[in-house]
């Protein structure tokens, strides 16, 4: 938590001056009752009009000086707090971006978003408040007591008793009611849950004719809510009357004591009035202090949550910066691709490998005895996976939900690090590549088709920052998105709303495919990326990818047997195990799981017919 304080360093001066200035202001506040006492004891008693006017002037002057101090303090604290919040926000955003999939999975995206937005806002306003009030309020409470002592020790003893009593009541009520408020909140959440459930399940509720029961259940939840609200209300309603009684009881005692002291000539009438004034000042400040403490404790909780994110370190570390990909190799890679594009060579891996001057034996992607276990998981999500994919091959990956298909392809761009074994690209372990370079060579089309706010062109440039319109159109052609883009008047300047809301699911999916193709990746990963496309478009897409990207190694993840049946190699996953690899025909005869999948979707005749 204290680590966050370093972001305040730039505002050291402001952070020190603000509380000091506020304290000075408070000091002037404390002088007011004394001045008033002077007016009564000197001015009125001696009928000295000049003195009264002078003291009146002093009062206004005290107010003015207080105002000046306080404004400066407010400005300093606002400046320090805003600067602090901004710095923490920037750092946190940077830090979150350095986290890898493993950490993101563990923490959860929505948590991260809350931390960087509302948590930081809360801490920022906490800093602002602390700078302004933390010294001021206690200073006035104790200052009032000290002033009372300067007036009269016996009368001051009443303060010594009253202040702790008041504190006990104020903080006691807070302490008791805060957990109760949390309970109310939980109950409100239950009411919300019931409401949500009934909205989302409206069809089922009606289909089963359960409306009356649902209303009854809601009434019960609602009733509980009201009861807890009334209860907590009863407790917090104690605060005002109780403090009122204590302060006034103290005042009664004060007047009585004051009467004796005056009678004995120890203090004056004006000083009695001053003591009464101090008493009422204390109450106001104590209540402020209590509220301040609530805010501080909330801010502290938020600060701790923010620190917790800072404490998480990205697990993907670069071990060999820039060691692997030499300039020569880069040239080779691009030559490789353009050669293939130009000539449309036959797509066996051996041949294309030769053409590029790389030994045919080196596979593009190779998994060797690879195990993978998600953070915190008991069992491995993938175990003992070994296979090779040659340059230019299409690899189909099939299996049920949770069988590990997506996990497998996520390991290629090193979104996760393997637990055991290795993943190699061009014969080199992915952990030995600089992360940026590695990912530049791979085009990923995720399951969820997401586009970003901006124009269509800006979205396409994600794939390659300096892509020309020509390159973009080529990618759109392959992704079967050209027609749709051309139909829009703005073409590539078409504005895309956040998440691509203004486009249909199918359109989004085709555009995300195009985005990955813009960079002409050596490896293309389609993670169940055609689910929103109808069969015809899906087929046309696969055909176009095949024809236009000769040397690209394509990973096709799908649940549909028809999608992957023509792949050069099919990987069959079942519960984290690689239970079969080979072509459609081979697997259909030899792999039980694959057979089962195919037959659940197609008839035997169909399976055989078009193979």
């Amino acid at each position, binding site marked *: 938590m204290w680590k966050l304080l370093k972001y305040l360093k730039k505002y050291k001066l402001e952070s020190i001056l603000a509380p000091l200035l506020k304290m000075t202001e408070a000091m002037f506040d404390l002088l007011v009752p004394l001045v*008033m006492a002077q*007016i*009564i004891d000197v*001015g009125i008693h001696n009928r000295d*009009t000049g003195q*009264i006017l002078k003291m009146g002037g002093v*009062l206004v002057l005290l107010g003015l000086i207080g105002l000046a101090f306080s404004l400066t303090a407010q400005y300093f604290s*606002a400046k320090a707090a*805003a600067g602090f919040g901004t710095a923490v926000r920037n750092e946190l955003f940077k830090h*979150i*971006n350095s986290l890898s999939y493993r950490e993101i999975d563990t923490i959860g995206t929505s948590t*991260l978003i809350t931390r*960087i937005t509302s948590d930081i806002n*809360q801490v920022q*306003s906490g800093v602002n*408040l602390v700078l*302004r009030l933390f010294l001021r309020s206690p200073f006035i409470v104790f200052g009032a007591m000290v002033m009372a002592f300067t007036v009269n020790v016996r009368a001051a003893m009443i303060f010594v008793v009253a202040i702790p009593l008041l504190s006990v009541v*104020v903080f006691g*009520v807070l302490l008791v*009611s805060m957990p109760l408020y*949390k309970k109310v909140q939980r109950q409100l959440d239950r*009411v*919300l849950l019931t409401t*949500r459930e009934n*909205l*989302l399940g409206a069809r*089922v509720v009606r289909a*089963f004719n*359960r409306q009356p029961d649902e209303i009854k259940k809601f*009434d019960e939840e609602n009733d509980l809510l*009201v009861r807890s609200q*009334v209860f907590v*209300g009863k407790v917090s*309603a104690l*605060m*005002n*009357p*109780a403090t*009122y009684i204590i302060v006034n*009881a103290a005042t009664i005692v004060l*007047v009585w004591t004051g*009467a004796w002291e*005056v009678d004995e000539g120890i203090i004056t009438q004006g000083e009695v*009035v001053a003591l009464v004034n101090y008493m009422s000042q204390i109450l106001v400040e104590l209540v402020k202090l209590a*509220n301040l403490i*609530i*805010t501080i404790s*909330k801010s502290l909780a938020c600060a701790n949550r923010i620190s917790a994110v800072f404490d998480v370190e990205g697990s993907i570390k670069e071990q060999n910066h820039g060691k692997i990909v030499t300039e020569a190799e880069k040239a080779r890679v691009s030559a490789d691709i353009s050669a293939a594009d130009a000539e449309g060579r036959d797509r066996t891996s051996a041949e294309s490998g030769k053409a590029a001057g790389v030994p045919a034996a080196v596979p593009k992607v190779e998994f060797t005895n690879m195990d993978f276990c998600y953070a915190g998981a008991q069992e491995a999500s993938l175990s003992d996976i070994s296979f090779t994919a040659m340059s230019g091959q299409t690899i189909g990956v099939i299996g*049920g939900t949770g*069988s590990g298909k997506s996990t497998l392809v996520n390991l290629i761009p090193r979104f996760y690090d393997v637990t055991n074994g290795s993943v190699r690209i061009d014969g080199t372990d992915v952990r030995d590549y600089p992360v*940026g370079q590695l990912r*530049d060579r791979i085009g990923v089309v*995720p399951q969820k088709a997401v586009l970003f706010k901006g124009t269509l062109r800006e979205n396409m440039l994600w794939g390659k920052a300096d892509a020309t319109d020509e390159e973009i159109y080529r990618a759109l052609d392959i992704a079967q998105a050209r027609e749709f883009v051309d139909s829009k008047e703005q073409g590539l300047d078409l504005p895309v709303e956040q998440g691509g809301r203004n486009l249909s699911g199918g359109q989004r999916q085709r555009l995300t495919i195009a985005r990955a193709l813009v960079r002409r990746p050596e490896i293309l990963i389609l993670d169940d990326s055609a*689910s929103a496309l109808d069969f*015809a478009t899906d087929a046309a897409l696969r055909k176009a990818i095949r024809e236009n990207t000769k040397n690209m190694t394509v990973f096709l993840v799908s649940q549909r047997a*028809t999608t992957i049946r023509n792949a050069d190699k099919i990987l069959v996953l079942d519960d984290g195990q690689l239970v079969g690899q080979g072509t459609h025909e081979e697997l259909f005869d030899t792999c039980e799981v694959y057979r*089962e999948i195919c037959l*659940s*979707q197609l008839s035997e005749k169909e399976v055989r*017919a078009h193979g």
Partner: protein
Amino acid sequence: MAEKNDQLQKPTVKETDAVKTQKLSKKETDAEKAQKPAKSRASAQLLQHRSTIKRVLAYIGNYKWWVLVSLLLAGVTVAATLYAPILVGDAVDLIIAPGNVDFAGIRTILYRMAVVVAVTGAAQWLMNHINNRITYQVVKDIRTRAFGHLEVLPLRYIDSHPSGDVISRIIADIDQFSEGLLMGFTQLFTGVITILGTLGFMFVINYRIAIVVVFVTPVSLVVASYIAKRTYVMFRKQSETRGELTSLVDEMLGNQKIVQAFGHEDEAQEQFEEINERLRGYSLRATFFSSITNPCTRFVNSVVYASVGVVGALAAVRGLLSVGQLSIFLSYANQYTKPFNEISGVVTELQNALASAARVFELIDEEPLSPEPADAVELQQADGSVAMDHVYFSYRSDVKLIENFNLDVKPGQRIAIVGPTGCGKSTVINLLMRFYDADSGAVRVDGHDIRRMTRRSLRANYGMVLQETWLKSGTIRENIAYGKPDATEEEVIRAAKEAHAHSFIRRMPQGYDTVISEDGGNLSQGQKQLLCIARVMLCLPPMLILDEATSSIDTRTEIRIQKAFAKMMEGRTSFIVAHRLSTIREADVILVMRDGRIVEQGKHEELLARGGFYARLYNSQFAAT
């Protein structure tokens, strides 16, 4: 929710300027929302406010005796609160100088004061408590009413309104309303009485000083409102920029995996820092401007205090005022401005509350389902014949959907509904279950128009398993027995077994008593669907509506679901939204849908021979690629 949390935890003590700043930022955004409509609509808004107030008062009217008691207590509290300083002043007047102190008189006054203070404390607590009760009861009444209305709203409304919007009306809006109402009760009334009472007392004691106070205090209000106006602009800018930042964060962090996959981190950071820097500027100004309100009003108050002190002292010199009376004025001068500031806060809060209440009433006013005709028949066990007779239907009058649709289903037939994703297969389900009414034409079950039977009995004759599995939060047993709450343990288990769900349920930590979290988070998609099947299996009505899963279920579970479906369909009229060719081929009638319309209907071979959309759809799936 975080924000709500803050508000709920806010104790009912007076706000510090700190808490106010925070709340202000929220208020401003709300106010901004309210202010969006052009000013010309202000009068219309006022009218709406008036009718909203009337309705709120009608709800409060149920508790009018309590309200009366609360008002009475408020009067007592204020009078006593104002009387206490007078007593102190009187006592001070009896303490003049050494040897000149009237102890007997002081004792009487102090005794009286003790009684007054005790009465005030008791009255204040009781009043707060009663206010709480009234508020929460009223809120409960409205919330119950709103929820009850939810159950009779046509699905047309529910489908066309985002669920978040409806939920926020029932939860957040009503909550906001309750806060405003409570503040109105506790602060508005006492605030007004306090101001009037203070003025009254001051004029009685010394009208000249009272006039000074009356003329100087408004200055603090003017200053405060001047600052508030300035601040408002900054707060709006701040919340706009915050919104911009949040949406960027939402976008970039929500899709962080894509950002990383494309190496877009640096660009994102740059964008973030640019917005963040702008935010810093606005945030600094908004915080600063809002935080100067307090010192400024404090300064005005100290001027008032000084004026009262000087004028009072001068009056005392001339013998027009006693020192005790001066001390009364001083303490009044301290208190007098507070209710003004509070009331202006309450007014904003009340405006928000009214806006929220209006949104809730809007929901309550939404037209409910058409009432059932008086002679509606109870459909007993249907034989399973379903007919659609010249049915026309569309969701929006300008987009035609189903036109002149005819269908004749004999008992026990299987109807497959096919078509690309999003082609509107659910429309047919909506019409069959009478979630929506046909625009013209008729849907008949057992030869009777379904509009002439009770919705209840019609729906009881259908068993429905949708792909979007909906489960209640509750135990597995409760979920299976959802359609038949009085089912015995044996019945539940039998249904689970027939749905092939028994084995996985047994493996759950508490078996049938395992609590399913919201949306069935602790179950896989396939398991959820099996539970939905078990739920229907328990009642097994004569007609079925089934929605086959597309992709998200693993093969083995899928085979089980197929078996369970087959078991259910035996001898029952079934409508199946089909994705699987085997299901489609075995259907007695295939309805081919496209863009929400039924384009073809017939048997598999017939449709293939026709060479239309169905044939294309079928072939494309097996096109050599």
